């Protein structure tokens, strides 16, 4: 197996007395979709913020494409090819959808014409091509999620960090956006996603890491992880795994 594109090596983050991330280690294989799941408050977004350069870890190292990138600022990471979406989606207000995507496109296209063309392309990829001229704040939630995706794609990333991109979408909207994410993988983009929508995790992810109370408690293929009693307990509480087993056995 080739070296993973992203290596998070025993990263720790303390906030005063609170240990938000505790020696967490995970990897993302190039070209694959890796999921990061776990109950609320597990530290997943903190971990993402560390990987994407918004927070510095108290300890540990982050490696990308073989280079140490720990503590590099977000804009520098973007130039390296790491893109990140946010949980709470906020388009650039007052701009159209196309102008929103344009900001990302400008990273690799200096001229406005070239960047606009690139933005249109990306808009088509995520399925927003008929809404490019609308003001971004008139989009529905599903539209905004696609826009968030589009903005990130516009910087032509090799690694895409998706932070709960499916949150707030109804089942049919989820069904519509999953193929878009699949399509990205087809282009060779490595994806790491934080997700709570389990059906999507099962169908999209090839490898899953489970984070609970700042620590990685399990990893493996989606089906394995779902059956793992430690994981079940993390979500449903102490003794839940045994209860479930007992209930099924009857």
């Amino acid at each position, binding site marked *: 197996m080739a070296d993973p594109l992203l290596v998070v090596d025993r990263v720790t983050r303390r906030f005063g007395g609170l240990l938000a991330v505790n020696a967490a280690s995970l990897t993302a294989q190039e070209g694959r979709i890796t999921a990061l799941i776990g109950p609320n408050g597990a530290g997943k977004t903190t971990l993402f913020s560390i990987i994407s*350069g918004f927070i510095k870890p108290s300890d540990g190292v982050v490696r990308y494409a073989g280079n140490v990138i720990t503590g590099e600022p977000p804009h520098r990471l*973007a130039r390296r090819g790491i*893109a990140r979406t946010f949980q709470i989606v906020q388009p650039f207000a007052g701009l159209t959808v196309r102008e929103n995507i344009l*900001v*990302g496109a*400008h990273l690799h296209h200096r001229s*406005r014409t070239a*960047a606009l063309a690139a933005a249109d392309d990306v808009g088509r990829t995520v399925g927003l091509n008929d809404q490019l001229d609308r003001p971004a704040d008139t989009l529905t939630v599903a539209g905004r999620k696609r826009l968030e995706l589009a903005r*990130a794609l516009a910087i032509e990333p090799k690694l895409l960090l998706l932070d709960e991109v499916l949150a707030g979408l109804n089942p049919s909207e989820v069904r519509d956006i999953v193929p878009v994410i699949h399509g990205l993988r087809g282009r060779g983009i490595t994806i790491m996603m934080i997700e709570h929508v389990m059906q999507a995790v099962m169908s999209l992810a090839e490898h899953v890491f489970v984070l609970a109370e700042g620590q990685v408690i399990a990893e493996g293929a989606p089906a394995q992880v779902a059956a793992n009693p430690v994981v079940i307990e993390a979500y449903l509480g102490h003794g839940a795994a045994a209860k479930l087993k007992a209930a099924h056995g009857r």
Partner: protein
Amino acid sequence: MKGFIPIIVVIAVLAAVPLIVQSNATLNFLVVALMIALAGQGWNILGGYAGQYSFGHAAFFGTGAYVTAILQMHYGVNAWFGFGAGILCGAALGGVIGALTFRSGLRGSYFALVTLAFAEVLRIIASVAPITGAGVGTLIKLDLGARAFQFQSRAAFYWVILALLGLSLVIARLIEQSRFGAWLIAVRENEDAAKTLGVDASSVKTAAMVISGSMTAAAGCFYAQYFLFVDSGIAYGTWISIEALLTPIIGGVGTVFGPLLGALAVRLLGEGAKLVTGDVPGLDLILYGGVLVLVIWFTPRGLIGGCGQIRQWLMRRNAPGGPSVIEAGHG
């Protein structure tokens, strides 16, 4: 090229004014209004496009004014070089303040405070330093002639400030259409998102401050040449910090013509007030403060934005089926 036609038209129309209007009082009014518009355009680059609200733009205005005055009076430098030097110093000051404040991550209220503090520090230094003439101020010796950047006719001054303003309009438009401008606006709307898209926010903001500082400094240099007198209260006083921010806000932040519209509106208001109540100190600023509050309250996007708001309101009224849920929510 297309985007520059309105600018060319406006400047052409304004340039024709001295050929029609002979009254010195009117020309004087226009010269001052255009100068304030230039200072405001400087503020607009930083505040309107980059979204960083400076409450101390007097720092740049005063620096421009003092540098050109001091260079001429104490070092015998030619007035035009002095002008250029003043602008460069404004740019440098913008770079310094920007590098210090943005690299420390200062935003919002804190940024406004720091700019206020810088302006105050400069004012205090200027009020006691011997080179600025301390409390007495600096007089530029009367030396009529183009070489000394002093003109007999007001029309000549008018065309100079108009040219400078025109240049600032062109720069604003260029920014709007460039990658730099797209990045600035992104930083203004959502700095974190902009960073993830590869925007080096602090460098971009600092660059905006350099451009902003040089424009407002140019206005300050012009002030010195036009009025031939500078003191710490004029150069670094709160009056110019306020007018520099008021004019873009009233005219329309983040637009090319906002500061010009705002400057004309604000100054007209001031003149109107003087007509009604006589030349009483403080009255014009009362109006300005009140207008600021009212504009933020009712038309936060200023006059230009207000037109947009009216247009949208009309569109909604005339749309078949009445206002849609989506459109009713914003505008």
